[in-house]
């Protein structure tokens, strides 16, 4: 999932300060799963804005709406009939959601309420960790399903740096050394042979070679 964290209220207030009628739009997908932009969080943010306006004697009008997915046109379309009644849209979608909404309504000011952070997994209640950098060239099969691009602080493909000690990363002792995990898992699988190969330099053009990437599939086109 895409994870995100809500921006501080002060930063949000600054962005919406010039406006009176505010449409707060949540997203029911990834950001709902990571409890930053779902229906519940959208309601909480709307209430916080109303309370803040009341205490500072400012008159604003806030309406909340949550789309199932903010990055897909069929769902964004639900805003068509209401969006004209508002001065600004405060989006609790990820960066893709914010931009998708703006793409459909280019004349409306859409501002983000979240900082989109990473592609990750839910480790336990209230804990999400990054596990994929979307490099476009997945090599997890060589590394016992531990991504060295994401989980090694130096993104090393050919073994650990000299800093790992007692299975912790030198950069952050709270983080396990990715290479310690790779080596011990491959050892358990009896596949240490996979580490004998020198991995050549990665092809980063698949990640950031020519600006934004796209996937175009003829079989899915209408």
């Amino acid at each position, binding site marked *: 999932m895409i994870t995100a964290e809500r921006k501080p209220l002060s930063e949000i207030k600054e962005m919406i300060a010039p406006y009176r009628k505010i449409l707060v739009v949540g997203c029911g997908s990834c950001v709902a799963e990571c409890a930053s932009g779902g229906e519940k969080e959208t309601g909480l943010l709307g209430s916080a804005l109303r309370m803040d306006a009341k205490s500072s004697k400012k008159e604003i009008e806030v309406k909340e709406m949550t789309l199932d997915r903010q990055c897909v046109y069929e769902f964004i379309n639900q805003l068509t009939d209401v969006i004209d009644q508002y001065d600004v849209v405060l989006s609790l979608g990820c960066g893709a959601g914010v931009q998708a909404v703006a793409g459909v309504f280019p004349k409306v000011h859409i501002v983000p309420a979240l900082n989109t952070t990473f592609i990750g997994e839910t480790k336990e209640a209230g804990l999400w960790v990054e596990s994929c950098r979307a490099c476009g060239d997945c090599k997890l099969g060589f590394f016992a399903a531990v991504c060295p691009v994401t989980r090694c*602080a*130096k*993104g*090393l*493909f*050919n*073994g*650990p*740096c*000299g*800093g*790992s*000690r*007692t*299975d912790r990363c*030198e*950069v952050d002792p709270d983080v396990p*050394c990715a*290479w*310690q995990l790779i*080596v*011990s898992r491959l050892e358990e699988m009896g596949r*240490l042979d996979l*580490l*004998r190969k*020198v*991995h*050549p*330099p*990665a092809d*980063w053009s698949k990640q950031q070679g020519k600006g934004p990437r796209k996937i175009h599939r003829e079989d899915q086109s209408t």
Partner: protein
Amino acid sequence: MKTDSQLKKVLNRGEFAVTAECGPPKGADPEAVRNKGRILKGYVDSVNVTDNQTGVVRLCSLAACALLKQEGLDPVLQMVTRDRNRIALQSDILGASALGIRNILCLSGDHQSFGNQPHSKGVFDIDSVQLVQAVRQMRDRGHIIGGDKLTEPPRLFIGAVANPFADPFKYRVARLATKVDAGAEFIQTQCIYNLNRFKEWMGLVKEYGLDNQVYILGGITPLKSARMAEYMAAQVAGMDIPVEIINRMKSVPAKEQRQEGIRIAVETIEALKEIEGVHGVHIMAIEWEDAVPQIVEEGKLFPRPEV
């Protein structure tokens, strides 16, 4: 400029090699580099110049190597993959060779979060093993990454590093084998204080048959004080300083601790000379280059061979 690497000549002749580390200044002063070079000249075969070590901005390794070359020393260009992508790295490799630099040490580099530019972007386009492989291809096959031919290949003796004290311990030697496969010709190790563990590692090195494929130079860092020993043991990643060494430093009065540190360094050198497969020492006297002549003399490694 057609001279060969002094380090390579010394090692190929079977002599016990001595290299030392020179940290460039945090400023643009060339004299700071030259002065360090003058202290080391005659006492070492080659001088490593660190590349913005611990992520702290310093005068660049390439320029400092060129200055040391002018002083008549044989520099070892340390190159980390943290700060430059493959275009810049390969370009600097060609530039280094053109300036008469004949040795390169390939590293990934300390993580940028440790230094004075913690908000910088860590590049890590390639890793240290891939850098070794790239230099080897440039030199021996005359092409860069991707296959484009060079008009003139660089002439460099290629080194890499190994840390016998980091985890996972057993895999450390497999990693060394990977570096040798990639093309490393000499290895400089992390500072050795735990001789037992180093011997254990060398045993594995021999089991892999690597002692016959690559020159290994053991790392030596003289301790300046008991406090430095304690700090390094607790704070420096990948460092293994046994409690006996720390206690030995503590057992002497503060003003004699520097001499005790030198004594430990000399004793370690004596021990390394006796270990089969160790081909030399690499002395990293951090901001204490003037300790090197004494260590080399007391370690009975002076004068250096003329080759």
